């Protein structure tokens, strides 16, 4: 298992834990439903964005298609990392992309999303969600 694959696995675990926390936080009776969204209508893009690997403003940003993402389907079949930490990204229906750092401003592709995250981070480390 490569280092990147291990990190991706950690990211997926954090995302699943976040879903569980959603159920608990508001004392909902069925947290399992929050943790395991159904996958109805999951249609991966036929022609996803190409991989990239570059240093942008001093940070290494990488992106690559992922296959068989399994449990968590928010990535649109694509994974982005900033200095090795996974950046949660999402593909919109019109083919634009957002990330958890810039969630309300769609951009053209995952590389633009990664660059926008580097600018927004202003040197700060991307960290997995602190679920306390």
């Amino acid at each position, binding site marked *: 298992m490569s280092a990147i694959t291990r990190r991706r696995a950690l990211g997926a675990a954090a995302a699943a834990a*976040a879903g569980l926390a*959603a159920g608990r936080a508001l004392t909902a009776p069925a947290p399992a*439903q929050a943790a395991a969204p159904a996958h109805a209508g*999951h249609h991966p893009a036929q022609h996803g964005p190409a991989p990239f690997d570059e240093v942008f403003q001093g940070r290494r940003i990488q992106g690559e298609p992922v296959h068989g993402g399994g449990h968590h389907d928010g990535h649109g079949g694509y994974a982005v990392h900033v200095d090795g930490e996974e950046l949660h990204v999402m593909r919109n229906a019109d083919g634009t992309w957002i990330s958890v750092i810039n969630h309300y401003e769609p951009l053209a592709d995952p590389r633009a999303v990664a660059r926008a995250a580097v600018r927004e981070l202003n040197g700060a480390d991307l960290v997995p969600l602190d679920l306390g």
Partner: protein
Amino acid sequence: MTVRKNQAALSTAEKRRFTDAVLELKRTGQYDDFVTTHNAFIMSDTDNGDRVGHRSPSFLPWHRRFLLQFEQALQAIDPEVALPYWDWTTDRTTRSSLWAPDFLGGTGRASDGRVTDGPFAAGANRWTISVRVDGRDYLRRALGSGGRQLPTRAEVDSVLAMTTYDMAPWNSSSDGFRNHLEGWRGVNLHNRVHVWVGGQMGTGVSPNDPVFWLHHAFIDKLWADWQARHPGSGYLPAAGTAGVVDLHDTMRPWNDTTPADMLDHTRHYTFDTAA
């Protein structure tokens, strides 16, 4: 009965009671539970999968329920407090009293975006950002950075004029009122305001900034205004839609509330002006 007022009309005492209640909710840890919940939904709501809180018809009833829960938590601390709303078509500059030190504090400083005044500034040690996506634990803003502009009243009116609540495929590519209000399509109202504020408000953990509640209280009021303009138009879809919360389906995470339950806000609160 709770009356939600325009933030610009609040007295100094009302502002202080509101911010004190928010700070107390933060101190007890309840505030951060709301941030965690919002981020979990924003990361899991997808255009081609299950979607509840965002990019779907239930964006409006979900946030109405979420704000009610937050308001009730504030009222458990101070029964006199109600959520104010921020009409960003009117109070559209960084000089608005909303951003004064006696209310939410102002924009962030240029070097690192840190908010340096008001009750939520890092220096006061009462507002540590715990539920976060990067290493920074202080509230950040970049109000209107890059010359961005808040939506105008004319842009709001153009969206309120849309007669259909929502349309297939019930996601970020939909035509209709809901998606134009949310902002994934067209003149962009709700999303643009998140981006205009910047800092944590632009991220999945946007409720870290207390202005989140004032922004969404106005989005919620615009839903009520739309209902008043279009009494013959109802929530859609009605039934049987995969991945989407239909009119009588319950919404996660509460599992006891349907969009139908949320249509009449006057069961819970009224606004200071007629819808």
